[in-house]
């Protein structure tokens, strides 16, 4: 069946596989960019709300335009997304409920209006709830953009391409404003960069992106494409520009890997893309160099040993008598397990803080200085003098 279509039409891009991957990549990039700011603004849930509540906008837009890819439909539906945000904020401002509750109240209401509209007009509307929720990337190449009989490629590629270009343009122009208003609303407002305008600008871009992406990847999975790449990138970098680049990278990777996974499993493409995103996030969550679970656990273990080390050094500092400084005595006296006293002794030796002679431990000059600085830091909480210790010891870092 697809073969037939492709023989009949004159093609610019002939290979539907390439087209599907291209659409997936463009959708992934367009979603990843606003996603970064949503994650940093702790508004990930809003994307979920928007993706559902645009449904009535899409249905009504479809009644008017009869074309799922019409720019008018996209704007109408995106407007519903912005209305969602306004409604959530209105409910929240009453002070009676918190933001998450407000979101939970608004989007099911709007979504259900959409579902009823579809059900009531099921015969006239070429739209069903399954397709809206899950989307179907595999069908995207069937919908061609024809300009005076000439096939210009899949329509959704053009739609998402234009949305992506607009997003990139806005990001390029207003990067600094978005950054300051995301980090510090108060300063942004005082400097004259209205946080309200930037907020609604971001919400509009997010809404338009969600609407554009929904018929390719569906209303639920578009949320994953917005949030997962940004959340993954957040664990890896402390630079906003790098976070944006990494998010885009993760989006593109999961778009292509997801496509081939779907090919392999004969499963839904968007479902596979999301699965890949989830796996990538899990891997990064476990193995990220500084924020990952394993490195956090390692750090906590090191910190425990370091606390023991300081206790041990203090003990040495306080006791001149040899019987208090005997290696074996330390095990019993400070009441540590063998393993712990061994790792503490090793850490102290590695840093040249102690010398052991005939099983008697004594502080070196370095050890004495370290002990005094650590003690002073613990008492005064001033950190100028211990700066150089932060490199080697987790305990003194922020």
């Amino acid at each position, binding site marked *: 069946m697809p073969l037939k279509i492709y023989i009949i039409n004159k093609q610019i891009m002939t290979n539907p596989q390439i087209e599907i991957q291209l659409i997936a990549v463009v959708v992934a990039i367009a979603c990843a960019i606003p996603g970064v700011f949503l994650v940093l603004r702790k508004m990930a849930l809003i994307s979920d709300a928007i993706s559902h509540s645009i449904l009535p906008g899409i249905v009504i837009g479809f009644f008017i335009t009869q074309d799922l890819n019409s720019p008018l439909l996209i704007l109408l539906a995106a407007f519903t997304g912005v209305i969602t945000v306004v409604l959530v904020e209105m409910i929240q401002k009453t002070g009676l409920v918190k933001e998450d509750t407000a979101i939970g109240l608004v989007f099911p209401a709007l979504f259900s209006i959409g579902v009823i509209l579809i059900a009531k007009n099921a015969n006239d509307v070429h739209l069903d709830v399954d397709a809206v929720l899950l989307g179907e990337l595999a069908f995207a190449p069937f919908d061609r953009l024809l300009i005076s009989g000439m096939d210009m490629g899949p329509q959704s590629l053009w739609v998402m391409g234009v949305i992506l270009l607009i997003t990139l343009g806005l990001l390029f122009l207003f990067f600094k404003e978005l950054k300051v208003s995301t980090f*510090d609303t108060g300063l942004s*407002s005082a400097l*004259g960069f209205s946080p309200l305008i930037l907020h609604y600008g971001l919400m509009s871009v997010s809404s338009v992106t969600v609407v554009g992406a929904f018929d390719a990847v569906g209303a639920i999975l578009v949320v994953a494409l917005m949030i997962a790449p940004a959340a993954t990138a957040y664990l890896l970098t402390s630079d906003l520009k790098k976070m944006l680049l990494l998010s885009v990278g993760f989006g593109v990777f999961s778009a292509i890997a997801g496509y081939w996974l779907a090919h392999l499993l004969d499963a839904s493409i968007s479902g596979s893309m999301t699965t890949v995103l989830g796996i990538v996030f899990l891997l990064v969550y476990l193995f990220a160099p500084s924020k990952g679970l394993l490195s956090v656990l390692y750090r906590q273990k090191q910190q425990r040993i370091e606390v023991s080390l300081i206790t041990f050094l203090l003990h040495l500092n306080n006791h001149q008598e040899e019987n208090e400084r005997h290696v074996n005595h330390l095990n019993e006296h400070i009441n540590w397990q063998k393993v712990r006293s061994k790792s503490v002794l090793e850490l102290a030796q590695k840093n040249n803080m102690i010398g052991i002679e005939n099983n008697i431990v004594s502080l070196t000059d370095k050890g004495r200085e370290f002990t005094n600085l650590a003690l002073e830091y613990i008492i005064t909480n001033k950190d100028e003098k211990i700066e150089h210790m932060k490199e080697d010891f987790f305990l003194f870092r922020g």
Partner: protein
Amino acid sequence: MIDRKLAVSVDDLTVAYNYKPVLWDIDLQIPEGVLMAIVGPNGAGKSTLIKAILGIIKPIAGSIAIYNKPYKKQRKLVAYVPQKGSVDWDFPTTALDVVMMGTYGSLGWIKRPGQKEKKASLEALEKVGMLSFKNRQISQLSGGQQQRVFLARALVQDASIYFMDEPFQGVDATTEIAIINILKELRKAGKTVIVVHHDLQTVPEYFDWVTFLNVKKIATGPVKDIFNDDNLTKTYGINYKVAVNK
């Protein structure tokens, strides 16, 4: 004082959250060149007063003038240091980048900071003793260091009036002294500095001007004239000595 220019003038300012007034009919004249503390109990509206002056919160009544003109026209004359807790310090950015944000105001929309802004930001970091931390991720800074970065960000704005919301909150003694010395230098240079302050004991030592606030304005003027038992009791509703020793 009669000859002094007014840096900030607040007239009949009322601010309400959900129809509950947090500031009630405030009249406040702040002369140029003072180092002023705003003191008052929790919930007195100290931060709200600053935010209303800076247009961050919309008042329901009243007017505000910075050197006789509305704030919107005088943005470049004003620098603001929000409460440290008001931002997310896990935000992916560095100390230098945060300071550079102070230059955004003079750049306006779209234009990006260049070498000139970077140089000014590095100088500001140096002034607060944080130059060696310029590339450090902000969550890796201690509370005192974060506050210094915020101060540097205000300094880079090169303003005439500085508003600071509890700059001494959660900082160590060294940082507190470093900050107050910079504030005193600013005053020496003829700038006006307005600080929301919590520690009543240090008011006479740090400041030359003070405003007592508790939803209404209780008193404002030179510390040596009005920082007394009477005003403290009126503001805090308890005996002055208790308040100071708290």
